């Protein structure tokens, strides 16, 4: 890494650390001093260790997964506006979850993460089968269509099973409410998979920017690389959706910021993207918790409100190139 990247990396890292400290200190109860926070973590007792720390960790991992997933997806489709939210991956997870919550009721609670993961993977597989081939445009539009279809079915289910719809709607909004150590354990292997896999493909995937022909000429085996990219980005998004529900705009916005800070080289922008994603979701969750307790604003909503203006700025400025 060049020196400027190292400085920026340290900058992002300290921002993340600062947010983490704030997130652990503040909440619905009185603010804790840093000493008390450390004390509670070391003794493994109190509100910080039991609730705030696992929730903050979950938020960070969810953000990391979504952001890296978005970055890989944007490289795969060579389209800066692609994101797991729009291409049907999160919609698939949402559909499976809504079915589980509404049909299965209380029974579904403990399996919800696995059901969501399964749903997202199934839809991702369908998109791959229907949309693969030379044209990224077709791939994207296939994802868009399946996403719309899934949303239509979700709405149908919500309206037909209205009494229990609120629970499903909250899940769909994307919230980190009540996430604990169980979720941290669930996410950890996927975070590892996405990070390691991301770094591994990064060495191969850079030439994709230049188009399929040039990439092939440079010795990249597209038939292997493309499924790998899709697999990684789906794994990240599906794991994140399974734990937190659909937190949108992270996978869309964060890769842009990461590319601005780190340049187009995936080997640098993937770590940046992961850190920034973690920072973004953690910030959103903390703000949502602290703004007006005891009412919690879902992190997905805050992400949308933070991300949309930046997206508008990108569109207006025409800075939507990879």
């Amino acid at each position, binding site marked *: 890494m060049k020196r400027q990247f190292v400085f920026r990396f340290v900058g992002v890292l300290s921002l993340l650390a600062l947010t983490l400290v704030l997130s652990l200190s503040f909440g619905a109860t009185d603010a804790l001093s840093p000493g008390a926070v450390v004390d509670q973590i070391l003794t493994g007792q109190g509100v910080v260790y039991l609730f705030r720390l696992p929730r903050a960790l979950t938020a960070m991992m969810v953000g990391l997964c979504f952001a890296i997933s978005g970055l890989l997806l944007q490289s795969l489709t060579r389209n800066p506006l692609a994101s797991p939210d729009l291409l049907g991956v999160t919609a698939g997870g949402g559909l499976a979850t809504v079915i589980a919550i509404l049909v299965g009721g209380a029974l579904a609670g403990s399996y919800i993460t696995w059901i969501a993961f399964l749903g997202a993977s199934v839809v991702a597989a369908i998109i791959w089968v229907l949309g693969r081939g030379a044209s990224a445009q*077709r791939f994207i539009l296939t994802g868009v269509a399946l996403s719309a279809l899934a949303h239509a079915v979700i709405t149908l289910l919500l309206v037909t099973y209205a009494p229990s*719809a609120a629970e499903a709607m909250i899940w769909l*909004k994307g919230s980190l409410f009540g996430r604990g150590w169980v979720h941290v354990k669930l996410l950890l292997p996927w975070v590892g998979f996405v990070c390691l896999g991301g770094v591994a493909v990064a060495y191969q995937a850079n030439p994709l920017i230049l188009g399929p022909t040039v990439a092939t000429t440079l010795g990249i085996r597209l038939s292997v690389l493309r499924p790998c990219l899709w697999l990684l980005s789906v794994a990240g998004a599906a794991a994140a959706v399974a734990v937190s529900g659909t937190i949108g705009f992270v996978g869309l916005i964060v890769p842009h910021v990461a590319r601005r800070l780190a340049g187009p080289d995936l080997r640098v922008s993937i770590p940046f993207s992961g850190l920034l994603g973690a920072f973004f979701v953690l910030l959103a969750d903390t703000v949502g918790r602290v703004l007006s307790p005891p009412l919690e604003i879902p992190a997905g909503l805050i992400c949308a409100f933070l991300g949309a203006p930046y997206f508008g700025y990108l569109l207006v400025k025409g800075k939507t190139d990879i």
Partner: protein
Amino acid sequence: MRAAAGYRPSLVSAAALVLLAGYFTLYGGPPSADPQYSFYQVRLPRFLSAVLIGAALGLAGTLLQLATRNPLSEPELLGVNQSAVFCVVLLLLLGGGSPHPAFMLLAALLGGAVSGLAILLMSASGAFPRERLILAGLTMSFFFGSASSGLLLLNETNLFELLHWTAGKLSGATWLDTVLVGGCLLPAGVVSFLRAGQWNVLLLGDDQARGLGIDPVARRVEIVSLAVLLCAVCVAVAGPIGFVGIIVPHLASFMAGLDYRRRLPLILLMGAALVSVSDVLARTLLHPAEIPVGVLTALVGAPYFLYRAQRL
């Protein structure tokens, strides 16, 4: 221009479908205690609203596709519907109770104008090929959708009623609704027929249009404004009903060719047929429960979109 596959038969069959849906809406269903009342105050306005909304949505989709030069443009996918919904939900929550439909229309217009402006900017720069425009529009749609459902969640009191409305519904349509939609559709339709010749030229591209003395930018502003007006009134009356605006123009151009002078009547009729038939199905398929008509059109429209995407 593509040859027309069958102009007159398709006009006739669309009209027949509308009549059929009308028959089922007006005379079908269980007999009511007060036939006079249910016929004039419930069924007739509902049927007429469905017809007018369908025609308006078909026209709106056509207009957006023309303005963006993108065959996949559609009010729901470009975010026009959802931004209008957001403003209406805001009004409903701030105003409390049930405000006058005219105010809802104003709110929907305000919201629709936001995404209309964005669409104009994006189609003017020319840097937005098909899938990018759709993705940008979807992102707007996604944002406004999550913002309005966030508002709904934070204010749970009338969640169910609003939830039903945000799925697109025609139940409870009144004469006022019918008049509102008709009042917006009539001028929009008249302007469309008057401009149809110029729009044909716009299809050739901006340079050709300029060469023939037509200002493409001014025309585009006009077209998007009309589309926003139509979408806004439909949202204010019935909530977001998606995908009518993509199925109808495509079918119509398949049947009637690209000439707007021939295509417009067919678009209006086909839109009316699609929504009124969907409404009949929405009431009967899961009887006694009612499916929101917007869900039904999306269930038809999304596979069609998928099919179109495969053929690109």
